[in-house]
């Protein structure tokens, strides 16, 4: 399926618009190598979340190419992208990552129970061993049987990270996962996340507007610098949208 030598992410001539004629993203070229930890920085409204949607295969580019692990999303069906995401990607949301009515253990197990290929990567290890391993790395092994509601926000984000990492996906995408955490916990969380990614040889694409975290990453990408849509039509981007709606 995926090319083992291909870069983790490769974008070329990417354009994306929610409404025709109003590009939110226009990126000529971006390559992220395997096992890089990338800090994707940009202010609110700069298209960070949209870019992550494209990388996760949840959104489909209007034009241009999105290649993840050598796979061109534009040639894949929505179902194939779902399967690809389940197999190769881990995803951590800003907050509310967990399914509230499942236990910590069940939340972590979701990806490998949903996707056979991800399950296969556990090798001979049992589900329980895999959960224990990843939970141990993220220091939540004590909470495996707790109800979600009893966990702190920091613990919940670590559970989300554990879920993203189980079954060793090649790429982990994190969408401001630390925004709800205080500074001490942020660094602790990132430390655990980096360790786990390193162990799994996973590429980490981390989006945030928080500059203080930058030094921890191997690479910084300033989204406004590469997103020509935001630069070129700074006025016609977000502010122009209501006017456009008014005309329509």
């Amino acid at each position, binding site marked *: 399926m995926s090319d083992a030598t291909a870069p983790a992410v490769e974008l070329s001539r990417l354009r994306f618009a929610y409404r025709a004629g109003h590009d939110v993203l226009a990126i000529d070229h971006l390559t992220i190598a395997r096992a890089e930890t990338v800090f994707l920085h940009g202010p609110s409204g700069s298209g960070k*979340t949209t870019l*992550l*949607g494209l990388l*996760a295969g*949840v*959104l489909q580019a209007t034009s241009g190419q999105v290649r993840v692990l050598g796979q061109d999303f534009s040639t894949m069906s*929505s*179902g194939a992208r*779902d*399967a690809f*995401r*389940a*197999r190769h990607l881990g*995803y951590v*949301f*800003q907050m*509310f*990552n*967990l*399914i*509230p*009515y*499942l236990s910590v253990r*069940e939340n972590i197990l*979701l*990806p490998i*129970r*949903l*996707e056979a290929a*991800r399950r296969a990567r556990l090798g001979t290890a049992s589900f329980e061993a895999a959960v224990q391993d990843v939970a141990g790395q993220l220091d939540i092994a004590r909470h495996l049987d707790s109800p979600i509601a009893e966990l702190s926000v920091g613990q919940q984000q670590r559970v989300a990270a554990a*879920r993203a990492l189980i079954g060793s996906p090649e790429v982990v995408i994190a*969408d*401001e996962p630390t925004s709800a955490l205080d500074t001490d916990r942020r660094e602790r969380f990132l430390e655990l996340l980096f360790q786990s990614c390193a162990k799994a040889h996973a590429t980490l694409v981390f989006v945030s507007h928080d500059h203080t975290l930058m030094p921890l990453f191997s690479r910084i990408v300033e989204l406004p610098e590469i997103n020509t849509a935001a630069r070129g039509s700074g006025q016609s981007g977000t502010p122009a949208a209501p006017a456009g709606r008014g005309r329509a």
Partner: protein
Amino acid sequence: MLILRLAFASLRSRVLTTLLTIASIALSVTLLVGIETVRAGVRESFAGTIRGVDLIVGARGGTLQVLLSTVFGIGSPAGSVKRSTMERWEAHPAVKWVVPYSLGDSHRGFRVVGTTSDFYERYRFRRDSRITFAAGRAAVADTEVVIGSDVAERLTYEVGTPVVVVHGLRDIGTSSHDAHPFRVVGVLARTFTPIDRSVYVTLEGIEAMHEGEAVAGTGAPAPAAGGTTGVVREESTVSRRSTKDRAAAIVEANTRRAASIPVAPPPGTPMAMPGAEPPPGTPPMMPGATPPPGTPMVMPGAAPPPGALLVMPGAEPPPAVVQQVKQAAATAVASARDRAAASAPRPTTAADVEHDHGDDQITAFFVGTKNRFEALMLQREMNTDLVEPLTAIIPGVALGELWQNIGSAEVGLRVIAIFAVAISITGMLVALYSSLEARRREMAILRAVGAGPRLILSLLVLESTLLAFLGCVIGVAFVYAGLAIAQGPIEQRFGLHLAVRALGTTEYTYLGIVLVSGMLIGFVPAWKAYRTSLVDGLSPRA
């Protein structure tokens, strides 16, 4: 199965919404199935008012008139039937038994039925229940009465209570038969049919009652009847003795009818009533004349003259038919008279006429056939009886006809039930949909960790189907639980037997509709989830 685990866990996590949704579906299913059960119960109990009787035969009149007046005691019969007519038909090869049924008197608002003890044997109601006695026994002597359970309850009568019967259906202004007091000898067990509201006496009882009245002089003046007990008694003896002869004569008349049609009527035959002028008190009955509605045809001590049998209230035979019937009947009467005269030891013309006058009048008679398939044929034969205009009805058919007329209420019930289901299904949609709003995040997470749209769809459809299914199961359980609890009280209070029975096609159709709409409704939020979770899932504002 992950999906089952997810569905159950998700439903359990919203336990209140889930329970309320299930309850709302269950209640409307209860309503649907309950209405269906009540409807079936009402229909069943209605159809079960009379069973075991293949034909009810009364004077010529409407089908419903015969049914209502005899079985339900509503309205008045179109007229009366001669007892001899009943006996004549009793001799018919297809007839197994006949039971006379004589109305016209009442006791404190309850109708009095004159019949024989065969009535209690032959009458069936509900499925195949027989009339049973809660106390006492059948009336045998002419002073004995049997009362229905409502009568016993309302009037607090029991075996041994003396009873006074009144002519006519109301107590006021009519003559009471004080001269002939009755005594209760039996109380019938409750049947939840009009039987419960009736008083039963023997035919002799009715006869004796009216005799007593004649003696006491409180009845309508009936000079021509002679007015003495002896005469009346004698007449009935004669009439009974000559039954066979007259039956033969009538059969002969019927078979001769075709032949006699083209023949010119014998001069004067239609009105020929040898030696007997119509009694002065008898209302004039002319062909085509309609007596005032409700005129009782049973006139104590004053039976109509022979000519009157050709004219029945409400019957409007075309003149040609009247003519034919007249002929035939006249022939039959003449023939019967001849034979009676030949066989009877007292051949006075006056006595003969008197015997025709005195031939007991009954309101109707019930017929059981030897073979039920012959009922239809027999009905046709009776309806074309040339001697006496009769209307024979098949009770089941007539009840069905009546139900057609009054059954529109059940359509109303059904419409209500369907509205109830529509409302509860809408409620289910609202509940599922609003829960989905709260679960957008959940859907986004599932999609992000690799759940495809198919899994999301299956999850939501599974959940809504599960709710609908549980609602159906609980609703049906409610109905049966309700039946178990309320069956007795409802039967006692309303006389409505709600049978505990397996679900029928109608119920399964209703349940199917509820299930399928529950399932389809799951598609709506599922479709919405499919469309929005893609965007929602990655949007920070969600």
